[in-house]
């Protein structure tokens, strides 16, 4: 592994990456469990370790608004949020993406109210999925650090120019101390040269940003934005590969474990992927082959790679740390369903809801999911509605 081994929690690891990225502007509001990111960055700026403008705003809505302005002016910009804070940013999420800013934002994933809960759910990340931001999910503290650096590089690439979200599970990653390798400043500098803005705000060259765009232009702009986000896919892969070569840590949009020849697969995002792999390894000792699939890249959704990872499976349990009220399944489940509808050979799918508000997902839960998947395979029929694990009452 390239770099030196240090101990940090996820929030500090993100802040450290942001410092090494040598950002120009940080505009952020502290919200649990992301607070440590903002506090650490404030410290860096205050003690002169980081030469950046730190804008302490009164709300997340302002945090992202200021970030949009700063990014358009040509600055490298970072912000962070969680849960209701992201909800408050919602309006500006669209604007940040539509104006093609290159903001990088960390989300310490946290449940939405009510009732007030500071622990992990993925509702917040999912709520941003249609807004045009690139989204990445970290599985551990190392990935939170790595993805933050890569996000700047990807966002600022002139063939991309979209803002990025780096998701890290609240408390599980934001506050857990883990060993990670950090790069030397010089390596980061080489990997992430200064931002070269496109069309920066310039008093000498007036331009209009965010003009009125009625039925005569709006649709063209949306069509263009859609196509541009699609064309970011190969560039994300390119940056993942370059970073993998630099660090010796493998990155790809989809992470598959034991999927080759496995009839049953579990699909899951974020920190729980490790638990799923642990169970898969244990079951492998008993001769059972269970594949585990997780996504590093969530938006744009890596449909092709997912289809490839899933090709041997007859049953896939898609696990969501979120509820989508009144819908046929939670968000990842719907993404996977829509992806597979285009495949000739389709595995049976069912949706599992787990871990809301920080509820632990234990290996025993995953084993239950695997048991259900196997019975689905035998019966040839999957449950119509999402099943819930780890809930009191009619649990799976």
């Amino acid at each position, binding site marked *: 592994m390239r770099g030196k081994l240090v101990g940090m929690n996820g929030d500090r690891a993100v802040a450290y990456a942001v410092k090494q990225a040598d950002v120009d502007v940080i505009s952020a509001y502290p919200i649990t469990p992301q607070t440590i990111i903002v506090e650490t960055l404030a410290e860096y700026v205050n003690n002169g370790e980081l030469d950046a403008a730190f804008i302490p705003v009164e709300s997340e809505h302002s945090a992202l608004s200021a970030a949009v302005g700063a990014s358009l002016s040509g600055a490298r910009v970072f912000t962070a949020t969680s849960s209701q804070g992201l909800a408050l940013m919602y309006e500006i999420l669209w604007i940040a993406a*539509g*104006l*093609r800013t290159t903001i990088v934002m960390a989300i310490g994933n946290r449940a939405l109210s009510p009732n007030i809960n500071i622990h992990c759910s993925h509702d917040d990340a999912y709520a941003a999925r249609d807004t045009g931001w690139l989204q990445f999910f970290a599985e551990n503290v190392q990935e939170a650090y790595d993805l933050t650096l890569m996000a700047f590089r990807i966002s600022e690439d002139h063939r991309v*120019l979209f803002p990025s979200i780096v998701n890290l599970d609240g408390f599980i990653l934001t506050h857990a101390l883990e060993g990670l390798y950090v790069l030397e400043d010089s390596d980061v500098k080489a990997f992430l040269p200064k931002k070269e803005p*496109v*069309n920066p705000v310039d008093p000498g060259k*007036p*331009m*209009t*940003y*965010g*003009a009125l*765009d009625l039925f*005569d*232009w709006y*649709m*063209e*702009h949306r*069509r*263009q934005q859609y*196509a*541009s986000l699609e064309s970011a896919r190969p560039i994300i892969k390119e940056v993942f590969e370059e970073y993998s070569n630099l660090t010796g840590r493998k990155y790809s949009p989809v992470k598959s474990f034991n999927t080759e020849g496995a009839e049953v697969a579990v699909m899951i995002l974020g920190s729980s992927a490790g638990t799923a792999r642990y169970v898969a390894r244990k079951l492998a000792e008993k001769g059972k082959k269970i594949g585990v699939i997780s996504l590093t890249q969530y938006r744009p959704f890596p449909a092709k790679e997912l289809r490839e990872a899933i090709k041997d499976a007859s049953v896939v349990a898609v696990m969501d740390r979120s509820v989508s009220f009144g819908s046929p399944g939670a968000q990842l489940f719907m993404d996977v369903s829509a992806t597979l509808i285009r495949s000739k050979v389709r595995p049976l799918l069912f949706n599992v809801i787990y871990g809301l508000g920080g509820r632990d997902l234990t290996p025993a839960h995953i084993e239950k999911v695997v048991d259900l998947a196997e019975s689905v395979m035998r019966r040839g029929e999957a449950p119509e509605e999402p099943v819930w694990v780890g809930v009191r009452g009619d649990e799976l």
Partner: protein
Amino acid sequence: MSGESVVLKLKTWRDLPIGGIIPEPKTSLHNKTGNWRAMKPILDNGKCIKCLLCWIHCPEPAILRGDDDSVRIDYDYCKGCGICANVCPVHAIEMKLEV
């Protein structure tokens, strides 16, 4: 600026500058908004007493003021709100349906 605006020719999505920006200034000179109008103000210069109330109140501003304080209406930008007709003390402006 001469010729047709780069921005306002009806381009396809492939030809637009990214991010919905308009990379040239003064585009409102090309972006004639008068076709939004349903009602059209018709000025009777014979009645006009050059008080300039319409010129002050027009929100666009689409009332053009001559050197001698006479007024005329710039139909490229008049949106037909009728304020001028309302404030004119001598009823020199009449709102008519746009045809």
